């Protein structure tokens, strides 16, 4: 089987991996192989029908691949969804960690990383919804994976070294809840193309608890 970037192997994936940051979300890859077409199929089917009403029939229809081939790649719908989710997740996080400015010391990198996040989501609202909205409906293992990846996303925005703060994790959760809510509501409102306008506000939201409002504002609005 052709290799497809996976979450776990994202950092060391081989030649099939596109350079991060310059291309759209995985859905826009030219899908040259069945597995990728199926991954694209599940994104399309879930976007059209919602997770619950998505059947393997709908996934293979969207992918234009036979049901038999589906089972050569995936055990069931959830397996296929999780594989697509891992690919999107790896892409988003890679983008955040490698974007221009993203390797600066904290707090300067926060703005760059958030910009990369918003940029990745703006490129394809369908994939953005698949990443941020659909897992809520799916529940179970998928919802757990979603929570894990949101937690990792929050950690990419944390100060380094971590402050001796008792409640960093609750702070992470509140933060990611705020960030995700602002993004998802704009996806629901059909204004995904304006997500980048959130950049100063999100930067300030992330930095204010650690730096205070004035300094957070200064950094959030610098070089706007």
């Amino acid at each position, binding site marked *: 089987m052709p290799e497809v970037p996976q979450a776990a192997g994202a950092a060391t994936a081989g030649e099939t991996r596109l350079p991060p940051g310059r291309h759209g979300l995985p859905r826009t890859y030219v899908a040259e192989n069945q597995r990728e077409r199926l991954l694209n199929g599940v994104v399309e089917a879930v976007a059209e029908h*919602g997770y*619950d009403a998505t059947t393997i029939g709908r996934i293979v229809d969207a992918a234009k691949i036979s049901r038999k081939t589906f089972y050569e790649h995936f055990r069931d719908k959830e397996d296929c969804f999780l594989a697509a989710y891992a690919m999107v997740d790896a892409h988003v996080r890679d983008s955040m960690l490698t974007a221009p400015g993203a390797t600066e010391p904290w707090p300067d990198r926060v703005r760059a990383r958030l910009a990369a996040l918003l940029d990745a989501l703006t490129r394809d609202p369908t994939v953005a919804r698949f990443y941020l*909205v659909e897992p*809520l*409906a799916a*529940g179970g293992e998928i*919802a757990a994976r979603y*929570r894990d990846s949101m937690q990792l996303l929050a950690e990419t925005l944390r100060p380094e070294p971590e402050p001796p703060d008792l*409640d960093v994790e*609750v702070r992470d*959760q*509140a*933060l*990611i*809840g*705020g*960030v*995700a*809510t*602002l993004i998802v*509501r*704009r996806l*629901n*409102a059909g204004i995904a193309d*304006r997500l980048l*306008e*959130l950049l*100063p*506000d999100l930067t*300030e*939201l992330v930095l*204010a*608890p650690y730096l*205070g*409002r*004035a300094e957070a*504002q*200064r950094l959030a*609005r610098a070089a*706007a």
Partner: protein
Amino acid sequence: MQYLSQRLASKPAGTGEGDPPAGTVAAQQRERLLDAAEGLIGERGCAGPSIEAIVKAARVSSVTFYEHFADKEACFVAAFDRAVVETGAVLHDAARGEGEWSARVRAALRALLETVAAQPARARLCLVDAQTGGPALCARYETALDAAAVRLRRGRLLDSAPRGLPETVEEAAVGGIAWLLRQRVEAGRTDGIGELLPKLAEIALSPYMEAEGPRELRAKARPGTSNAEPLGARHAPVAEAGVEDA
């Protein structure tokens, strides 16, 4: 008309709008249907309960169901609306006993946590399934978030509030609170949820309780250059927002 029971439930044009008067059999049936929907969603989520399951749990006929609701989603929306109205009243009452605005917010949050602990099925409907149960429910959920955000905007009038707060501060705070609650509700860990109170209060109040630096220093921070508008809350003048309630 798709089902016979729908056809049997149809009424002449011009009637059938609005809720049945309280105390009538129809009103009791409607309450039972909403209770059943809420309970079943609490167990299995919005995708779980069929209309058959709902009418069975409510001990009414499917014709009765269609007399009250056009479809399943309309029933879920009504259950959500009822939960929001009732919870809103509880929060309002809790806040009323307090003087300072921040104390009112804290009291309302405490009442919210108590409600979540006491009614986990309702909490699941409002915090988890409302976002995924279809467009009408999702719109209701967002309206409820906006209403809460408008209440919080009152904090901008406090002396301690810094200038130039982004317009989306309240939307983010409400989203953060909803997120924290949802994690607990989804995981079925609502028992000790009261312990979240200090954290929720911090999320809600900290934007307006700037501790660092004198006000003159803060005033130097460049005022709002953000382009992002809050969704929904933008037309609410600060002076009106939640003056009476937390």
